[in-house]
């Protein structure tokens, strides 16, 4: 229930290793913000600076209008869920959840009320008298969340809470976090390296790399309009295909010429290119696997490829194909519209023809790697 404001925040280790650089972010009250990025990008460090577990080398962090730089974690009124749960092994589940309340010297009645209430929401009432080691991974994670919940703190911090769970449980817990969020309605800061988690959970996503913010935006924004090549490749699975190609202009129309084909940039993208008056040049073209369509032999916009790997995912096929000049591309083909003949044509070693959907292409500068249209 508070606004968190980070201004020029910096973290420097050993006087020369910069972990987080010039981090500016204004997290609104009750907003769910996700920090996402590859390991070592500084996302956890930033979270831990908000928690007070790491010293802040430069800049200020405000929680609810108060500069907390010099405050101890206990004085910041925050709750945190750790990656490895960090449950106290010597305490029962009940006492684990009650721990922060006991430190506050809350009366027993109130503690009991709050703990059982939280346990009910999380569905762990039956385990309250057990020790953490008798619980499964998912149950432990719930206890950890319960411990953070009972406090009614201003900010709820989560440091990769799902990464120790197996894939199935992770999906389930992700859904539960969305539900939980509706119930406890406070400010959330969530750290993950998994872009799916970021896209599904966050109101806003902060994508980081090498200690620098790459882009801040809603899931839609970062997906549709990645600010640079890194964000484009990081968000979305399978990863966006990127390769160098020529962007040319003929009259009022823009075309790209990948692998010998010539594809028109149409729809809103074409308009935007015109509006920005982009000069024809060699660019990096980005096409998401789901934006690659099957083409026909002989069409000017179709590209001949050889299927290398065929991954059947059920609802769709993931094809790893190789163009004539040995560029590897990933193509996502929904199975629903495929005929048997078409499917048979997509086995390894077979030739297929593909084309790109012009209205959802992304163009990046060859040198700066920035989105030409951002």
């Amino acid at each position, binding site marked *: 229930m508070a606004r968190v404001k980070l201004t020029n925040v910096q973290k420097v280790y050993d006087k020369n290793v910069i972990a987080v650089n010039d981090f500016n972010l204004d997290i609104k009250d009750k907003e769910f913000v996700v920090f996402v990025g590859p390991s070592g990008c500084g996302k956890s460090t930033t979270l831990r600076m908000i*928690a007070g577990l790491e010293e802040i080398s430069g800049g200020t962090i405000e929680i609810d209008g108060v500069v907390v730089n010099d405050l101890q*974690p206990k004085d910041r009124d925050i*709750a945190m869920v*750790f990656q*490895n749960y960090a449950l106290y092994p*010597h305490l029962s589940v009940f006492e684990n959840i009650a721990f922060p309340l006991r*430190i506050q010297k809350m009366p027993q009645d109130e503690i009991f009320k709050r703990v059982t209430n939280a346990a009910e929401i999380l569905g762990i009432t039956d385990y309250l008298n057990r020790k953490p080691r008798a619980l499964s991974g998912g149950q432990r994670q719930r206890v950890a969340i319960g411990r953070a919940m009972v*406090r009614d703190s201003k900010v709820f911090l989560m440091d990769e809470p799902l990464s120790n769970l197996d894939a199935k449980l992770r999906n389930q817990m992700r859904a539960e976090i969305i539900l939980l969020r509706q119930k406890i309605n406070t400010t959330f800061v969530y750290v993950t390296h998994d872009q799916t988690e970021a896209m599904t959970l966050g109101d806003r996503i902060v994508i980081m790399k090498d200690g620098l913010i790459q882009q801040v935006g809603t899931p839609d924004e970062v997906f549709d309009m990645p600010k640079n090549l890194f964000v484009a490749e990081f968000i979305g699975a399978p990863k966006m295909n990127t390769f160098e190609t020529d962007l040319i202009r003929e009259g009022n129309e823009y075309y790209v010429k990948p692998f010998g084909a010539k594809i028109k940039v149409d729809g809103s993208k074409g308009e935007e290119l015109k509006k920005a008056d982009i000069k024809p040049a060699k660019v990096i073209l980005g096409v998401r696997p789901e934006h690659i369509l099957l083409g026909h032999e002989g069409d000017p916009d179709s590209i001949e490829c050889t299927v290398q790997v065929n991954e059947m995912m059920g609802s769709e096929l993931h094809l790893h194909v190789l163009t004539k000049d040995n560029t590897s591309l990933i193509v996502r083909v929904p199975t629903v519209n495929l005929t048997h003949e078409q499917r048979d044509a997509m086995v390894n070693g077979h030739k297929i023809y593909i084309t790109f959907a012009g209205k959802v292409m992304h163009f990046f500068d060859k040198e700066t790697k920035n989105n030409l249209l951002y």
Partner: protein
Amino acid sequence: MDKKKQHMGMKAKTRLSNGIIYTALTIISIIWLFPFFCLVCESFRCESTYQVEYIIPQKWGFDNYINLFTKTDFPIWFKNTFIIALFVSVLQTIIVLCMSYTLSRLRFKSRKPLMNLMLILGMFPGFLSLILLYKLLSSWGMTNANSIPGLILVYVASSGMGYYVSKGYFDTIPRSLDEAARVDGCTRAQVLTKVILPLAKPIVIYTILTAFMGPWGDFMLANYVAHATSAGMNVAVGLQNMIGTSSSMAANYTMFCAGGVIVAIPITILFMALQKYYVEGVTGGAVKG
């Protein structure tokens, strides 16, 4: 057919190697227990007080034990050692835990220099500093007859340097527990009392146990501080003095054996009762030190 033969061969081979191991372990056990068996036998020997060349006494009895308690200062030595061990086990445990917890969990500027300093100090023979300490203790009247407080002081004062084993143990407790507790509202002192100490029970017991056992076996320091007066000796110095010369050896040898048994019994019982923690401490902490 061939395969079966090989299989049989393997089984026989295992049986053979296990047989060798059992034999070896039996021999080792006998070698390790034999001296203690002899010690106990000799302590009950009544026909002579000097060293003899046979093991089983010709006349069994409690004479040596009775003499030990009535004719020598052994009760005083035992009491001295017990008092020392009691104080040392409490004080040393506190100091070692403070030190090891701090060095394992807290990060501050002088941490590395402090650890390096202690590493370097550990390379000087401890006896060297005792020369000055003896002079100081004697000027404070804490030697010889009054050596108990002096010895406690000497044992305890520098015990912070023996932090390695328990630091190794603390290092194995995940740091995220500290962090969780701090976020949950604990001061660093509360983190120690409410989270770390309850989790560190094995190493606390290990530290108490080793601190308690130390004074029973110490000879070098105790001998230096209390070498002249029987009233200030610990059991090690007292019993060693009993057989220090060949004439005293002839008169007291069996009594020395009885003393050894008396000292060994309580320590061994304590040790056996807490063996689990000792093993955990040695295997957990010592290697990482």
